[in-house]
């Protein structure tokens, strides 16, 4: 009776996320559950009263509810019924993933080779991409299911989804050339230090020649400076003054770039490759900060930039990989355009700011799972700002490992309504997936759990998020 609001299929152990690596959560044939050795200590208390089940969350959430015991008998039909509700592919994939789940439940597709669905999806994507004029709507739908890592097409698909590349293939070369040269000009204009600027100005006004004549001896001639431009100038419009005011931001950017993904050789380490990647990240962020005096640079932008740059730099096409910096810049601007207001402190409390977005997430959770919402917000008083702030502003890059966040970004970027909608749904799904543990936990436990989100099967997460879209409030009561 307690679980009325959440559908039974959601409660079934088939969908639960793994907790510790020790407990194999998802036995292939459901009927084995009752005979499972590890469950012995858990099952007896379950049948007597549901209360102790709440405290067994540490071991495994899926067995912590009394309904599971009854479900286990009806398990065989369950994998079959979901396909009737939604598309055939994702649940089939779920089952396959589930059975292959001997590692920690993170998407194992990379290690165990592409499944038939993946290969077919890959073929479909390649087919779509090779058309003369690409149907972006169709591409979005295909990408929403996830872009396979194998064929290296993700970077092209992302570029199309973000509008960097036009849908007409024949225009690609000219568009890219135009954008890349534009970025080069930005760099030249904005990344020059004042010494170089003065030198260029002098050269253009012909003052350069005087000292080159090489006199033997004598007093050096003094020349006038233009506009009072000297390094110690305190004038607002002085290039030197602006330069020194920017150094603070440059230092901030530099620090953050060095801290991006320290575990990945691509980004950190002493190799020249890592250094060049760091330089590229730094340049992009500096150019962005200078072009956008409104928001400049805020900590966290480096995290949003990292996956984009990684994908584009690892593009199998040589030409694209070498111009990754320029491409990433424009795509970064595009991605950030939907989320700019989250980074502006003044807008925090406004209708478009981060607080209102977090409230929207809260509302979404309330719609779909009122019991969990009540438990989190009212009973345990876990303010969504404590966990959702990082989820939303950094687009979930910090919650999952790098490969998983790329999959999530596939779903985010392919949403025709914009990444924010999908992001909120994914966050909601993240909460719903660990609902048992959250319902069992108090403030400290829940906060700890939410701030270190446990590893999950990403395709499952995206599937649940998608379901929230399809059935808006059909689940309640």
């Amino acid at each position, binding site marked *: 009776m307690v679980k009325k609001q959440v559908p039974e299929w959601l409660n079934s152990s088939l969908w639960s996320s793994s907790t510790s690596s020790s407990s194999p959560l998802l036995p292939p044939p459901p009927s084995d559950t009752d005979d499972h050795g590890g469950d012995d200590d858990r099952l007896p208390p379950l049948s007597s009263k549901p209360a102790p089940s709440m405290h067994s969350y540490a071991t495994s959430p899926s067995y912590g509810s009394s309904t599971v015991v009854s479900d286990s008998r009806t398990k065989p039909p369950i994998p079959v019924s979901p396909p009737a509700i939604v598309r055939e592919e994702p649940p089939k994939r779920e089952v396959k993933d589930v059975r292959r789940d001997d590692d920690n439940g993170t998407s194992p597709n990379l290690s165990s080779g592409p499944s038939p669905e993946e290969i077919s999806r890959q073929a479909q994507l390649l087919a779509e991409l090779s058309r003369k004029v690409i149907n972006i709507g169709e591409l979005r739908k295909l990408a929403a299911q996830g872009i396979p890592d194998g064929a290296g097409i993700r970077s092209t698909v992302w570029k199309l989804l973000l509008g960097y590349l036009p849908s007409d293939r024949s225009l690609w070369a000219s568009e890219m050339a135009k954008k890349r040269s534009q970025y080069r000009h930005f760099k030249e204009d904005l990344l020059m230090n004042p010494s*170089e600027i003065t030198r260029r100005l002098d050269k253009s006004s012909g003052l350069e020649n005087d000292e080159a004549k090489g006199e033997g001896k004598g*007093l050096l001639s003094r020349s*006038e*400076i233009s506009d009072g431009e*000297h390094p110690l100038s305190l004038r607002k419009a002085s290039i030197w003054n602006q330069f020194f005011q920017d150094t603070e931001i440059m230092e901030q950017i530099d620090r953050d770039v060095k801290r991006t993904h320290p575990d990945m050789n691509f980004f950190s380490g002493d190799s020249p490759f890592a250094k060049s990647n760091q330089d590229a990240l730094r340049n992009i962020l500096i150019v962005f900060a200078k072009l956008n005096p409104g928001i400049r640079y805020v900590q966290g932008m480096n995290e949003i930039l990292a996956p984009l740059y990684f994908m584009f730099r690892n593009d199998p096409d040589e030409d694209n990989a070498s111009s990754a910096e320029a491409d990433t810049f424009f795509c970064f601007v595009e991605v950030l355009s939907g989320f700019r207001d989250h980074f502006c402190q003044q807008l925090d409390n406004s209708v478009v700011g981060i607080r209102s977005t977090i409230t929207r997430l809260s509302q979404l959770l309330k719609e779909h799972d009122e019991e969990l919402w009540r438990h989190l917000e009212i009973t345990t008083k876990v303010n969504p700002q404590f966990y959702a702030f990082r989820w939303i502003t950094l687009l979930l890059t910090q919650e999952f490992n790098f490969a998983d966040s790329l999959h999530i970004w596939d779903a985010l970027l392919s949403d025709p309504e914009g990444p924010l909608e999908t992001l909120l749904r994914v966050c909601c799904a993240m909460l719903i997936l660990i609902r048992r543990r959250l319902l069992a936990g108090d403030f400290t436990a829940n906060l700890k759990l939410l701030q270190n989100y446990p590893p999950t099967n990403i395709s499952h997460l995206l599937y649940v998020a998608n379901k929230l879209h399809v059935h808006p409030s059909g689940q309640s009561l």
Partner: protein
Amino acid sequence: MVLVLALGDLHIPHRAADLPPKFKSMLVPGKIQHIICTGNLCIKEVNDYMKSLCPDMHVTRGEYDEDPRYPETKTLTIGQFKVGICHGHQVIPWGDLDSLAMLQRQLDVDILVTGHTHQFKAYKHEGGVVINPGSATGAYSSLTYDVNPSFVLMDIDGLRVVVYVYELIDGEVKVDKIDFKKTATTHSMH
């Protein structure tokens, strides 16, 4: 793009109380990478003030300095340039180009920064360049009472140096600049 401040002959507190306020307002920490001080500060407080502007400070001993531990001469390398510092009271005649050129050859530097005359000068000769930043406080010298406060800021960028000369004339700060390049192969300036 390395900014190097060169100043000296402040004679605080004996002949002057402090730097002119207009100079002080311009000298803020965080902009300058090195400070070269020719000497005659004279007290520790001035040393500490300059250290607060920039931690990398090089001082040589002037005849009125109260700290006996400053060296007589000093050489350092900034970017592509070798810079030498000496107060200048040791070089007789004071302020004479040929004698200073001799010192420059002895120290084997491209730029020699000296003081003592309290007059700004920038000379060039085959061996290199001699810069005298003058007195930053406008203190009177052994030679003359008519001294304008002045100091020098060098912008060293590769093989090129832009010397910005800051002088306080009639209560107004006047800034001029001097440009010179060093040829990569030879040791001398052209």
